[in-house]
């Protein structure tokens, strides 16, 4: 029998064996809890299954049903609304905070910690407090609004118009600190000498921001953008605690819809198809951003 591969030396073979031994625990867990489930999810999305009856193969049935599902269309629209509003606002605010907290102001460490605290808090605990703050009968927010003279107080979570903005506000509050920390790390990567040199050349603050800071920060901005978009597409806990997708599905989002179909209606096939749609959207967005990054991301 001819050997196609060149013979490995004894040492190299030992190293190879060691490598697989070191990988074994992680590989087994990866296969069981990630690789096989991803493939299974793909196949389950072509079936009808409620966990108790026989599995029925329905081909593209679930996907066709999703395409005709009015609630799903609404869910996609809501998720898009959430992503389109929360991501840009969050990034702009985070960048502003990072710039402000990178100037060596008094109390800067204190501010950084306070702004970051919501990030480590569980979304459930945060959502519970905010649900209470936004309560239209006895919440602090409407109390504050009526104090400054607003008479037509929004019903927040009880209104199809204001429920989503309420969720967006909480999401921005919670995730702002994460993006801020990333921007701070990015700003610290930009040497002070670059700014000093530019200042010597007579560049004003705004000039320096637009022509030096922003371009040099673009790899960080790119990372924050990708992470924020991926994260926003998966909003779930805020919806669960604050509105339970209501009123009239006004705040139903992709992941909440997956949860509803899978774990409340036990439609595993339908839920899996929705999960595959989520996967494809996230994948498409990330790939498009990688393509576009060449136009605006400058690596030093």
């Amino acid at each position, binding site marked *: 029998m001819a050997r196609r591969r060149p013979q490995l030396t004894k040492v190299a073979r030992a*190293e*190879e064996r*060691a*490598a697989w031994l*070191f*990988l074994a*625990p*992680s590989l087994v*867990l*990866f296969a069981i*809890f*990630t690789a*096989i*489930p*991803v493939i*299974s*999810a793909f196949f*389950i999305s072509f079936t009808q299954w409620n966990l108790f009856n026989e599995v029925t193969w329905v081909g593209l049935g679930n996907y066709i049903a999703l395409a005709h599902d009015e609630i799903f269309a609404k869910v996609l629209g809501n998720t898009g609304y959430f992503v389109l509003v929360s991501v840009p606002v969050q990034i702009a605010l985070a960048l502003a905070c990072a710039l*402000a907290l990178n*100037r060596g*102001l008094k*109390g800067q460490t*204190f501010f950084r*910690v*306070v702004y970051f*605290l*919501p990030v*480590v*808090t*569980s*979304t*459930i*605990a*945060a959502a*519970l407090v905010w*649900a209470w*703050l936004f309560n239209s*009968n*006895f*919440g*602090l927010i409407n*109390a504050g609004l*009526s104090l400054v003279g607003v008479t037509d107080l929004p019903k927040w979570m009880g209104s199809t118009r204001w429920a989503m903005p309420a969720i967006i506000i909480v999401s921005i*509050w919670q995730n702002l*600190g*994460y993006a801020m*920390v*990333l921007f701070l*790390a*990015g700003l610290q990567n930009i040497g002070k000498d670059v700014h000093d040199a530019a200042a010597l050349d007579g560049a004003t603050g705004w000039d320096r921001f637009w022509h030096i800071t922003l371009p040099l920060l673009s790899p960080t901005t790119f*990372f*924050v953008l990708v992470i924020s978009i*991926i994260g926003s597409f998966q909003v779930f806990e805020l919806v669960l605690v604050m509105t339970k997708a209501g009123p009239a599905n006004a705040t139903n989002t992709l*992941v909440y819809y*997956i949860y509803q179909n899978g*774990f409340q209606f036990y439609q595993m096939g339908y839920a899996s198809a929705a*999960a595959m749609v989520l*996967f494809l959207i*996230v*994948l498409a967005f990330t790939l498009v951003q990688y393509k576009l990054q060449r136009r605006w991301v400058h690596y030093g």
Partner: protein
Amino acid sequence: MGKSVTDWVLFVVLLIGALLMSGPFVWMIATSFKPAAEVFQFPPTLFTADPQVDNYRRIFTTIPFGRAMANSLVVSVLVTLLQLITCSMAAYAFACLRFRGREALFLIYLAALMVPSQVTLIPNFIMIKTLGWIDTYQGLILPYAFSSFGTFLLRQYLKSIPAELMEAARIDGASHAQIYLTIVLPLAKPALGALAIFTFVAQWNNFLWPLITTTKPDMQVAIVALATLQGQYNTDWPLLMTGSVIAIVPVLLVFVFGNRAFIAGLTTGAFGGR
């Protein structure tokens, strides 16, 4: 002069921002001491004249919250330890050893970072249910005993360890296990610390998986127990806020003591990946 005025304005703006950011926490703590009736007053009070310390006893007697906190602790600590072991072993292989298929396998691990966890949720749930692992610790822990993120983070760090160090040890006759234990792990302490804190916090706050794989109140983790306290019709808000205060204490402790390492864990992805 101009600069100091700008800084002054900035300081005031940041202070208002800090009030907005910390306000909900203050509100949470303030409400946890209120008598139930005071919660529905309009306009609301911030600090109650009649503080109810009893809320902090009631939360443990109304629901098995002590048990839930213990469950959270057991699950989070074990998940963290297991991830440190499995991720560091895999990272050692990826960063320091040569084997066929290394690049391809690493790419597969990286690709897994892109998969939303909701995609694997249903198959994993079906598997846990089939195994009879609903309401068990292994069901809560094992799916998280490994992570692509942790492997990636540690591999990036291990890549920076000079190869000469390990080669010298090889020449002295050290086995791979010895090199991993006596050279690599001690040198990787900062990265391991970052991963540990990051994993603990993420696991403590993990909600959807424990929600669907536990049915008995005795097996619930703290965060799930909190969510179930929010009733359909009547919500005991002071009790809920008391539970929320208690449930974030462990995370705050970890964050305060491991602030630096935690931030390192968060920002590695942004800059280590290049």
